[in-house]
């Protein structure tokens, strides 16, 4: 059974970035979010995604280095959120 945070994140990614040809369930948990040929996300997409995630989850990502780490994959982002929720 999939983790509710990863499921929510995948939906957010698809809707926020308007990924027309990709369904949330098509995004593997471990696939790199930035630089993946399948997703085709760039740094501007990353910025948009970070802003939405911060708002939705009430978490602040403090630096570009943390942002890069958090956006390593859906799994990494979910882990980051779990570790930081309640800290902001």
């Amino acid at each position, binding site marked *: 059974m999939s983790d509710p945070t990863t499921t929510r994140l995948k939906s957010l990614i698809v809707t926020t970035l308007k990924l027309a040809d990709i369904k949330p369930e098509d995004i593997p948990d471990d696939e790199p979010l930035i630089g993946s040929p399948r997703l085709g996300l760039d*740094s501007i997409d990353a*910025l948009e995604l970070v802003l939405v995630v911060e708002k939705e989850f009430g978490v602040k*990502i*403090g*630096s*570009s*280095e943390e*942002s890069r780490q958090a956006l390593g994959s859906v799994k990494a982002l979910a882990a980051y959120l779990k570790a930081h929720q309640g800290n902001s």
Partner: protein
Amino acid sequence: MSAAADTFPSTIEACDCLTRFGDADRTAEALLLGRIALSLLPVLGRDGGDSVPLALMGPIDETLPPRWLGVLSRFASRIPAGKWGAPREPVVVTSSNFGIGSLYAFTRDRDARHIAHGTPFASVELLRRELGWGTQVQVFSHACVSAHLGLAHAARLLHADLVDRVLVFSHDFVSPFVAAGFHSLKILNGGMPAPFSDREIGSIGLGDGAGFAVLTRGAGPIRIAAHAMHNEMFHFTSNRPDGDGFGACARAIAAAAGGRSVWVKGHGTGTLEAGRLEAVELARQFPGAPLVSWKGSLGHTLGSCGMVELAVTLAALRTGRVPGTVGATAPCFTDNVALEPFAAGAFDAVVLTSNAFGGAHAAMLLCHD
């Protein structure tokens, strides 16, 4: 591939700047003492937000008339007399953000009087009238290499004998709009910048800055001997990972330097990825040349940084002491990073570099007898 540098020498008749510390001499003096102009302030000014490193000449919130107008008007009294804005003595104004703070203020307060100063040409026209310049005012803007482009353009005008003297005037004042933009990119955060330091988390600071240079034709005792410019055309917010964007510009200016003994005033904002690429490529092209950045103290003065740092460089040459990389600590990305002040006398030229969003790179070679 590197385009060859422009080698149209222009003499610097006068040059000065304005930072949080004051003019170029005061700024150089403060840097030599290791003082840091940045302090942690709310990113959105009166609207609060996270605290980030800013070096401002006044409150960040825009005013009526715009907060930069009076500051620049007083600063302009230092410009040598001339028929500025006349056909043979044009003015080149460079900025990254011009009056963007006024557009933000309008959006926030809905006071229509802000709109008159918000767009680039409207802000320059306001400045032109305030300072009594003629109509020959040219405007250049290319993010944080804006001042370099203005100086390079002036050198080309002089070389082509289209003009006799050029006043290049650069300014950028931080607004909540600009600070929040860098903050949302996560490169302006709660940490103080430490340019070229090899650490876990990077951060930049932002600073208000203004500067001018009066250039004349030919090779005087203090001259800009060459300009190099290069655009990677790689990505808006990131550099080629192999560093060749930095390398292309550095190679061109190194060729123009022709083996002179130089020190390098780098861009060095405090970001990690670009800082590493820059330090490595400059060390490769200028082996053994000390590399400094002053943005760990002054903050990144955006489009004016090339002019501000040129004026500080000239002030350092007058005193014979070059400020080190204030705010940085070892370990650094490369061994050439100078953390402490050093004597200018051992060198006969300076390379000054700036980089910008969109993969733009610029460098100039400053020679002195």
